[in-house]
Every structure is written in structure tokens, then in C-alpha cells.
């Protein structure tokens, strides 16, 4: 008999090759869930840091299986609805059900509004906003068909609730995710499907530990280092920490996915070290 806070459930996670997505897969598996994991496993033109790879996704598979949980992993692009539908169809066929959705895949690029290229804007909105919608659109029929309710968790950002200069496309996409969350919560409540969003501050992953982010936070320096970034990153929050860890976001996701939050829906939950109230 499996035990755990989400024992016997099946979770679909996008962007699961590494970073927060991998952390979510591991944390949910630790608490008894099986996993359907997808990742692009490829590059995106306007993104200047390396994205997750097939090897990264294979490592997520290994880590979940080492917990004695099942995982169906597929290469899929949140810009391509068909690829998500295929992965979900195969995953649900193999694992038998769907209960939890983590729309987590996301990218980062930067530029002032006038400097942002049309491509950077389009790719950002396509992945970080439309990709979240496609993820939900593909998953919701499986949740409804299960007839057991469900929990959808959208990964927004502090930038989904407040603005940051020089990333208008990211702020617009993440604000859009907040609006999508609220709308889905109203549409899906009759099915007992809850929809909430996570709003992390900087999370210690490859998406922030790179030169793009370092320069965004330290425009005053020619070649900012990790330490320079840490100093500026810490200043955005209230608690004396440089950034949060993936496991902090996973802990919040697990709470929202579990029955402990069975009556929480339509909520935007910050994991932000106080960034929203500075």
C-alpha cells in the first residue's frame, strides 16, 4: 500500500528535464505519485542560456524510478498542442489516470521594451503564457473524464503580480498566467478541479544562474559574477536569503496538489521571501 500526501495520484509536469520541473517530479514521487514528464529537450532561438536536454530528462526519469515510482517521459513542446496531447494520451494510458497538472515550462530573456525583438516577444508569450494554456487544454479533458476532481498548478512568478523593468514580455506573460489561473478556477470548480498559481521570486536554477540574468540585475557592472547577482537578488526580498531553492517551490506545489488544500482554488501563492511587500 503506497503512502504519502499524493499517494496513488498521477501528475503531469511540463519542463521536467531539470530545475523546478524535475524538483516537482521528485517531490511528488516521494509522496507517492506517478509522473508524466515532458520537456522540449532543445533550444529556443531568443533564449541565450542552454535549455534542458534529453540527458537531463533521462536523469529525471532515473531519479523518479529510484523512488520506486513510475514515470512516462516524452519530448514535447508547449508551443505544439499535438505533442502535449500525445504525451498525455500515452502517459494516461500507461499510468491509468490524471490528477495533478504542473504547467511549469518557462523561459527567460530580457531587453527594454524598445530593444525587445519581435521574435523574443513572440517566443516568450508562446512558451510562458500560451504554453500554459495549451498544457491545461490538453490535460483538462483527462481530469474531467476521471471524475475525481483534480489540482492544476500554474507556475507564474512574482513578475505575475508586479512589474520588473527590462522584461516586459516576461511580466506580461506571467501576469497573463495569473489571469488564466483565475479564469480556469471559475470554469472548473463544478468539476471539483482546483486551479492555483505559484509566484516564486528568483529560484536557484539554470534559468537565473546565467549571464542574461546577472546583467539584468547588475546593469551597473560590465561582467557581473554570481556573487554580484546574489547581492542584488537578495535585495529584492525581505528575508535574508539570496534566492529560494527548487524544493521550496515544490513544497508549495505539493501542498496545493494535496488534499490539505482541498478547498483552496483561484489562489496566487507567493514563494517570494517577501518580494511582493518590499
Amino acid at each position, binding site marked *: 500500500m503506497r503512502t504519502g500526501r499524493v499517494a496513488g495520484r498521477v501528475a503531469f509536469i511540463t519542463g521536467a528535464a531539470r530545475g523546478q520541473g524535475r524538483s516537482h517530479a521528485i517531490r511528488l514521487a516521494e509522496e507517492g505519485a506517478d509522473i508524466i514528464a515532458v520537456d522540449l529537450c532543445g533550444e529556443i532561438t531568443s533564449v541565450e542560456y542552454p535549455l534542458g536536454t534529453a540527458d537531463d530528462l533521462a536523469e529525471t526519469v532515473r531519479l523518479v524510478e529510484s523512488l520506486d515510482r513510475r514515470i512516462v517521459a516524452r519530448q514535447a513542446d508547449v508551443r505544439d498542442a499535438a505533442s502535449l496531447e500525445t504525451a498525455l494520451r500515452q502517459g494516461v494510458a500507461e499510468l491509468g489516470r490524471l490528477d495533478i497538472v504542473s504547467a511549469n515550462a518557462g523561459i527567460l530573456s530580457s531587453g527594454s521594451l524598445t530593444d525587445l525583438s519581435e521574435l523574443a516577444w513572440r517566443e516568450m508569450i508562446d512558451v510562458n503564457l500560451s504554453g500554459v494554456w495549451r498544457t491545461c487544454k490538453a490535460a483538462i479533458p483527462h481530469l474531467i473524464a476521471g471524475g475525481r476532481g483534480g489540482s492544476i498548478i500554474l507556475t507564474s512568478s512574482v513578475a505575475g503580480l508586479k512589474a520588473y523593468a527590462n522584461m516586459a514580455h516576461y511580466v506580461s506573460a506571467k501576469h497573463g498566467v495569473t489571469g488564466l489561473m483565475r479564469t480556469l478556477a471559475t470554469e472548473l*470548480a463544478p468539476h471539483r478541479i482546483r486551479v492555483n498559481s505559484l509566484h516564486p521570486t528568483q529560484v536557484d536554477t539554470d534559468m537565473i544562474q546565467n549571464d542574461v540574468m546577472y546583467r539584468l540585475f547588475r546593469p551597473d557592472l560590465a561582467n557581473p559574477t554570481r556573487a554580484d547577482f546574489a547581492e542584488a537578488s537578495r535585495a529584492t526580498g525581505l528575508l535574508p536569503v539570496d534566492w529560494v531553492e527548487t524544493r*521550496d517551490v515544490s513544497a*508549495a506545489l505539493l501542498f496545493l496538489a494535496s488534499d490539505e488544500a482541498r478547498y483552496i482554488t483561484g489562489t496566487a501563492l507567493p514563494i517570494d521571501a517577501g518580494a511582493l511587500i518590499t
Partner: protein
Amino acid sequence: MRSAADGQCGQETVVDRGVAALGRLDIVSANAGIHSSAPAHEMSESAWQDLIDVNLTGAWLTCKVAVPHLIAGGRGGVVVLTSSVAGLKPYANIAHYVAAKHGIIGLTKTLAQELAPHRIRVNALSPTQVDTDMIQNQMAYKLFLPAIEEPTRGQFRVASQATNLLPIPWVEPRDVSDALIFLASDEARYITGVALPVDAGVLAK
């Protein structure tokens, strides 16, 4: 141990004695609250004052006497204040309650700022109707069903459910406790200054 949120029964002694007996303080739940109802312009001075005293000033006093123990412990800590969905949206005929619960949100965020350097996190809970004596009474029933002479629990159930998105009439105390434990635990170690709804979707409706 008997106490009172308005500080009249020597609450400071209660906290001091408790910490002396148990050795430390880590978590504070400022939960005590009352409820009454009247249109704002017809509300008596005492109804207003009592509710503000308990629900808002009482929460501040609770923090005021407890926080020094958290700081003295040097291990950080967590303060969870019980607000309400009425801390984030208005309801007619409970102006004092809405004002007090909104006040709690302001207090939460201010305390979160002041106490972050001590690694003390401060968050609020914003429940919808919780199945307790505070809502299961004629006064609360009348608030939801003003047109009915003597509303029943069954009628209240329907009216209460209509405020929620999820198809449930109210939440249970343990649902609020589950959220409190999450916020109180290290799982939420970097969550501060947040108002967490346990509201069956009231705020998203």
C-alpha cells in the same frame, strides 16, 4: 490558561509562563475572533468597538506579547494571523468585521517587513465560512438570509455554498489548520507577507 485578546486578563503573563514552562516559542496563531452584524450606519458604538478590539487590536496585542519571545529565541519563527475572505473583499452588514479583517492584512504585511531581519515570517489566513459556532447560529444565518424570518441550517447551507466556487457549503476547521501547518512549517520557510485564502474560490468568483 485563561486569557483575553484585549489584554485585560494578563495575557502577557500567560505567554511568559507558557514559554517558561515549555522552554521556547516558535509559532504564533493569532486566531481569536468574534462576529456580529448590523448595517454600518445603524451599528452601535459598542458593537463596533468590541469587534475592533478583539479581531484587530487583539491580534496586534497577541503579536506584541509573543514576538519578543520569538526574537529572544534567535531561531526565527512564524506568526500566522487569522484574517478572512472579508479581509480581501467587502460584505454588507459587517463593516466592523470587514474593517478589522482588512486591518489584519495590513498588520500582517507590516509585521512581515519589520520581522524579516529576524527570520520571523508573518502570514495571514483568509478562510471563507468555516463550520464553527461562529457561523452556525441564527445571527449568521440571518446575515446570509435577511429576507427569511428564522432561517434553518439547511437554508444557510444553500446560501453559504452560493458564495463559493467549489460545490461545498463551508470548509472544516481542519482545512484551515492544514494551511496553518503548511505556513508554520519549514516547507514555507521563504513565504512571508502572504494572505493565503482557504476559501473554496470565493475570491476568484
